[in-house]
């Protein structure tokens, strides 16, 4: 396989990981949404490159779905939600960003070690993409764990799903039906979560999920 093909695929996948770290770093809502759109854009580019390399035209559809749904529709919808909730000026003050970054690095190291050992015999193109994809998934999870604001948790969930798509396209032969159903389930999740956000706000006057703990009586 051509050296450049591999390098370019890795660069795009590596850029996805980098953008995941950028997501962890942001503490303002609008810049968070912009970075998320950037990640979707990189994902679309990466998937399109895989389609070109693997000569699999159905992956172009996946790339298009990622581009339209995640780089355009979801950020715009969330943008509106943020404005309507009136939290666009909030700054999240979750314990040190530095610490979160350190955790993130540990997760990347973990996924590298696990993936590269586990898939030693696999195709090199898929193998290292998988390692990056696992990092993106874990970083998305980390984001969901460390954020208190419900909207940033949604972003974490969506970026986790970006990692899944990256992993799925790296491995050859994922059927388009699965792809499309995943994409639409994410859209449904967005709608459901969007409705929930407003319900939560109505009930607690805040989208800080710690308010939920208080209502369950876990905090005095």
């Amino acid at each position: 396989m051509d050296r450049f093909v591999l390098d370019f695929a890795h660069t795009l996948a590596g850029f996805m990981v980098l953008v995941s770290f950028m997501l962890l770093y942001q503490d303002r809502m609008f810049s968070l949404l912009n970075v998320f759109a950037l990640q979707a854009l990189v994902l679309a580019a990466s998937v399109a490159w895989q389609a070109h390399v693997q000569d699999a035209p159905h992956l172009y559809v996946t790339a298009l779905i990622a581009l339209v749904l995640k780089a355009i529709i979801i950020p715009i919808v969330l943008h509106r939600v943020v404005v309507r909730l009136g939290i666009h000026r909030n700054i999240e003050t979750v314990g040190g960003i530095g610490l979160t970054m350190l955790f993130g690095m540990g997760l990347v190291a973990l996924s590298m070690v696990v993936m590269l050992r586990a898939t030693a015999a696999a195709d090199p193109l898929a193998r290292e993409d998988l390692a990056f994809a696992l990092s993106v998934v874990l970083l998305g999870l980390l984001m969901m764990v460390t954020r208190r604001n419900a909207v940033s948790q949604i972003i974490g969930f969506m970026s986790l799903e970006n990692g899944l798509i990256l992993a799925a396209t790296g491995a050859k032969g994922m059927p388009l039906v699965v792809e499309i159903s995943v994409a639409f389930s994410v859209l449904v999740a967005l709608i459901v979560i969007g409705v929930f956000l407003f319900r939560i706000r109505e009930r607690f006057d805040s989208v800080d999920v710690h308010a939920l703990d208080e209502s369950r009586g876990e905090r005095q």
Partner: protein
Amino acid sequence: MGMIRDLFLQGVQMFLVLAVAPLLLGFTRRAKAWLLRRKGPPLLQPYRDLLRLMRKEVVLAENASWLFRSAPYMIFAATWVAAALVPTFATGLQFSWTADLIVITALLGSARFFLALAGMDVGTSFGGIGSSREMMFASLAEPAMIMIVFTVALVAGTTQLSQVADFVFAHASLRVSLALALVALIIVALAENTRIPVDNPATHLELTMVHEAMVLEYSGRHLAVIELAAALKLSLYISLIASIFAPWGLAQGDAAPGAYVTAVVAYIGKLAVGGFLLVLFETSIAKMRVFRVPEFLGAAFMLGFLGTLLLFVSRTF
């Protein structure tokens, strides 16, 4: 004959960086003013400033020690040596065997050490604040720099800049680790040159100063030498980035004289591009709070570490 030629080329490099550094500063100021739709000072203004400062009398504080008087020359010497070692227009020069990334980091570190000492010497509070902030940034920027050095050294198999440039030139390809190292190096360069997200080089408000606060007490030729060292440092970082990540247009070992001339032109072009990109970035971003800087530099460290990590895990990155 060959020896004389080599020494001559090395001399050209030493004086080229010295001559070009204020011009780069003038260019960035001009371009910045232009981006803000103002006219800006003429390109040669930094040279005039330096001349003016050279002619002025030195005013020393009463309790300034010998350290305060000798520090500017120490800072200038260390910075100039470091700047002269980075391959600007040619690789494989006479002293290129000493042009090691770790040596350059150490030279810049010692220059900063003297600057911080000089800032505290007179005992004014602003100098002390400046020194302590500078040391805080340095303690964060240096680990990041070392991680970048590791990444580059693992890719190229050497820490010697001239050979790194030759390697990247010969085996040019997209490498994830190198891309990460580039972003990290840009962040470190912004912090080290006290450019906008970290510090404002044009500030007049003492409380926000970092670099300027340390040199507040200097005047006359001492100030001129320090300003020249700061200009050299900026061109050093741009040349460093250019020589590692864009070594195209560098003259190799023993090229024809004509090749050297085009290489010098290419170098000045790279400096102009680098300076313009810097200004573009600076005008599109606001200065961050001092307490936000550790996170910014932590990101650089993280990127460098990630690059090193990827290289350790798999050779193909």
